[in-house]
């Protein structure tokens, strides 16, 4: 009986939402390249959804899940800069501007622009970034690269370490999506 309910639920959800693709293993990396030091952090458990019908795109990532080479980097990132106990997530919510150029049923590499709101450290900004959607044998993957200025998100770097942390941090995101109704 429980299985039947779950099945009915998934089925009805699928009709209501059409073609949605999701991933819970999205990868987000950031690279800070300053004069004195290079710092990078990686997260492999970002959540993301693309709605093929409307072009809506969402990403979410937990700040404390970023991995670093050195313990101090991780501590400073969480405690001093991102204040991750107060702002545990970063979020993006937006839309593919040129959705018409993407044919989800046809293999290919599609260059798109995505516009939306990016929330980091409790500050929300409107951003536009180019992205690439790749369709191969029905599988959808997406990637994008963009830069974030720390000052825009009220992330303050003390003068003492200004040589160690870049004012603009490069961010790379990548995800392999699954069709929504294939939730295990």
């Amino acid at each position, binding site marked *: 009986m429980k299985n039947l309910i779950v099945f009915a639920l998934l089925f009805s959800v699928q009709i209501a939402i059409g073609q949605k693709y999701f991933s819970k293993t999205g990868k987000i990396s950031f690279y800070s390249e300053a004069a004195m030091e290079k710092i990078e952090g990686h997260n*492999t*458990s970002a959540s993301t959804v693309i709605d093929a019908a409307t072009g809506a795109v969402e990403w979410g990532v937990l700040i*404390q899940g970023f991995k670093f080479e*050195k*313990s*101090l980097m991780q501590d400073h990132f969480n405690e001093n800069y991102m204040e991750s106990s107060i702002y*545990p997530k970063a979020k993006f919510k937006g839309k593919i501007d040129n959705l018409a150029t993407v044919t989800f049923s046809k293999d290919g590499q599609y260059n798109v622009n995505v516009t939306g709101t990016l929330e980091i450290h409790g500050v929300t900004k409107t951003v536009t970034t180019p992205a690439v959607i790749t369709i191969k044998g029905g599988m959808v993957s997406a990637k994008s690269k963009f830069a974030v200025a720390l000052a825009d998100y009220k992330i303050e770097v003390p003068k003492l370490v200004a040589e160690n942390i870049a004012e603009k941090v490069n961010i790379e995101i990548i995800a392999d999506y699954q069709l929504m109704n294939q939730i295990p």
Partner: protein
Amino acid sequence: MRKVLLFLLVLGVIGAGVGYYMYNKPVASLEKKKADIEATSDEIITAYEADEKAADGVYLGKVVQVTGKVSAVTEQEGTKKILLETSNPIAMIICEMETGTETGDVKAGDVVSVKGMCTGYLSDVILVQSTLVKK
């Protein structure tokens, strides 16, 4: 006077050594760390679904030992994950395992305890630097 200078010099060298060591210290393993809190996968997801902020107050950034039924064990680019079922069929406790951790013969359906740092809630609750707790 010379003794004092020598003492200060030695102290300085030790200080620099400790500083250098601290600066380069890798992220410490949680394996030997005692869990701050123990809970079942159902308890954690129920808390997060009811009130995320309150649940963050309890679990976020803490070393959590969670017990639950394995839904799947996955590996992607060297990162192993153990997914634990919860009372919600589409929400999991995703335990990202510490690099190099062996998951042995753990398979779907097993009930296991995993210890890791809780990073919060994104429709699933995610633990990082996780290790299996031996019974």
